[in-house]
């Protein structure tokens, strides 16, 4: 029977790999996701067949409650809230791993009493690791949710948090050595203390990180949630958990490094460098002085006229677009232009949304065909042939200073070269700085026009103006 169960875990792991492989094209992705879900079913059935499972009542109750809550939130969540949703789910997964490690610890005590278990060094370390990663993922993720929602602001005393982190880590190492070396199965209090310590550690690790860096943090916590599962696999000696956990861990790490590259920052700088805006921001008066009298303001009517004569139009959506709920208006305008024979594309910066690929999802929801969504490296050479580039709610990712001003705090960050387009129209509610807290010299360029107002409203006005032309 045990052989069959282990084969079941292997089948599940293979299905997961095939499932992720399916994600390589949008066409096969739905099927891939279903394969993964089947893999999960196989793994659960294999677990239920284990000889350690004698009563099913509690399991069924637990699954029903979890499935009910899960289905409810999956149906209800808005696409703009995906980063919060994924962050919260990371946390929930980390919490589950933490609980599994704690439960296993208690069971091992009982098993040892029965003479069927002897604690080893590697088991002890695995238990602590599992608790550490699980707990950090749990609390860290919920702090990230708070920051994404804007309920938790950027921390002022970064140094204090760093200090707590260092202290916690030292205590943790000392605790682990004591735990492994002395009497692992007689340390209830120590384990409880370690759990609390790791929960605090999770909070203090994420608190000092700026709200703008949350895409990196969410990706990293995604990785942790996988590693937490793998660590639980080490504790239980379960290969299915180890394989699956490491797959997720790898995925999160890759996304994290993509995000870091897109912001031209190292992971250490994001994690320990404090908030970007806090160090580099300009005051409001400096900001006003920068733009004073140099910005050319325009209107929706003028935008419509520009678009009327354009052969190639590129939309540059930023998170502001999603905030204004202007995806559908954008799509409507794009449809109209296409019907008139204009070439329409969307330029997507890797950090355009608030998590990797977020903007693509938001535009897909508005039924923008995915082949019109062009990545930064492919679209940049095309801007020189673009008649009108429309920047919607994006700021730092189109700031030319990042490319040529070594003094700029965002120098080196890859940007969309919209300034190369014949005309750049920036639709924005005001001249306030973006996440980096610096003014944008694009707005005072010769070929830039500013249409102030809510993106959705401006686009709707442009659509009706275009109809009247």
């Amino acid at each position, binding site marked *: 029977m045990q052989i069959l169960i282990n084969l079941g875990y292997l089948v599940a792991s293979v299905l997961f790999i095939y499932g992720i492989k399916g994600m390589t094209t949008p066409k096969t992705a739905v099927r891939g996701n279903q394969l993964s879900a089947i893999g999960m079913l196989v793994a659960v059935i294999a677990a239920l067949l284990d000889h350690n499972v004698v009563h099913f009542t509690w399991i069924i109750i637990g699954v029903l409650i979890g499935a009910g809550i899960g289905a409810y939130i999956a149906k209800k969540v808005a696409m703009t809230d995906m980063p919060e949703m994924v962050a919260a789910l990371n946390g929930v997964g980390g919490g589950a791993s933490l609980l599994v490690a704690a439960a296993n610890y208690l069971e091992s005590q009982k098993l040892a009493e029965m003479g069927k278990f002897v604690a080893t060094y590697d088991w002890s370390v695995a238990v602590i690791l599992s608790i550490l990663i699980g707990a950090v993922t749990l609390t860290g993720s919920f702090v990230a949710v708070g920051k994404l929602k804007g309920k938790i602001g950027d921390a002022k005393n970064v140094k204090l948090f760093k200090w707590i982190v260092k202290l916690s880590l030292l205590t943790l190492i000392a605790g682990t050595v004591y735990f492994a070396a002395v009497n692992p199965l007689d340390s209830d209090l120590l384990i409880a203390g370690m759990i609390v310590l790791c929960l605090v550690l999770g909070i203090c690790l994420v608190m000092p990180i700026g709200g703008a860096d949350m895409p990196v943090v969410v990706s990293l916590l995604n990785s942790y949630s996988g590693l937490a599962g793998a660590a639980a696999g080490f504790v239980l000696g379960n290969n299915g958990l180890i394989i699956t956990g490491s797959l997720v861990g790898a995925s999160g790490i890759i996304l994290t490094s993509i995000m870091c590259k897109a912001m031209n920052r190292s992971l250490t700088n994001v994690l320990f460098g404090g908030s970007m805006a806090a160090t580099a921001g300009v005051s409001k008066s400096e900001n006003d002085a920068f733009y004073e009298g140099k910005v050319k303001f325009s209107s929706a009517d003028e935008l419509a006229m520009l678009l009327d004569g354009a052969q190639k139009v590129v939309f540059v959506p930023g998170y502001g677009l999603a905030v204004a709920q202007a995806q559908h208006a954008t799509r409507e305008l794009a449809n109209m232009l296409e019907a008139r024979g204009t070439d329409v594309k969307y330029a*997507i910066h890797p950090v355009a949304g608030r998590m990797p690929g977020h903007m693509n999802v938001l535009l897909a929801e508005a039924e923008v065909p995915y082949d019109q969504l062009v990545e930064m490296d492919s679209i940049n050479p095309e801007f020189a042939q673009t008649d009108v580039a429309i920047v919607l709610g994006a700021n730092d990712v189109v700031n030319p200073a990042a490319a040529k001003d070594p003094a700029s705090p965002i120098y080196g960050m890859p940007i969309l070269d919209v300034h190369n387009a014949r005309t750049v129209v920036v639709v924005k509610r005001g001249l306030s700085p973006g996440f980096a807290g610096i003014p944008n010299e694009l707005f005072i360029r010769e070929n830039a026009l500013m249409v102030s107002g809510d993106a959705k409203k401006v686009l709707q006005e442009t659509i009706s103006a275009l109809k009247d032309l």
Partner: protein
Amino acid sequence: MEMFIMSLTIFVLAVFVGVEVINKVPPTLHTPLMSGTNAISGIVVVGAILSSGGSEHTTVLSTILGVAAIVLATINIVAGFMVTDRMLNMFKKK
């Protein structure tokens, strides 16, 4: 220790498989990739089930922790797969 080395071997090899497969996922699908892998990390439900099955070595407390873990892991699995499906279907339709 032998078991640990075995586990570690599997872990390292699986990380390599993961990197190979995931590097091929296009940026367009990174959000669904994240929510999908998130659902997969709910695999820890396996451990939770083993703790809640009422075997002779479980205690009241370990069962409570196990059941709580099942609830959390199932939320992760069900919400993760469903929301991924929701997103991917938006990409499918033209």
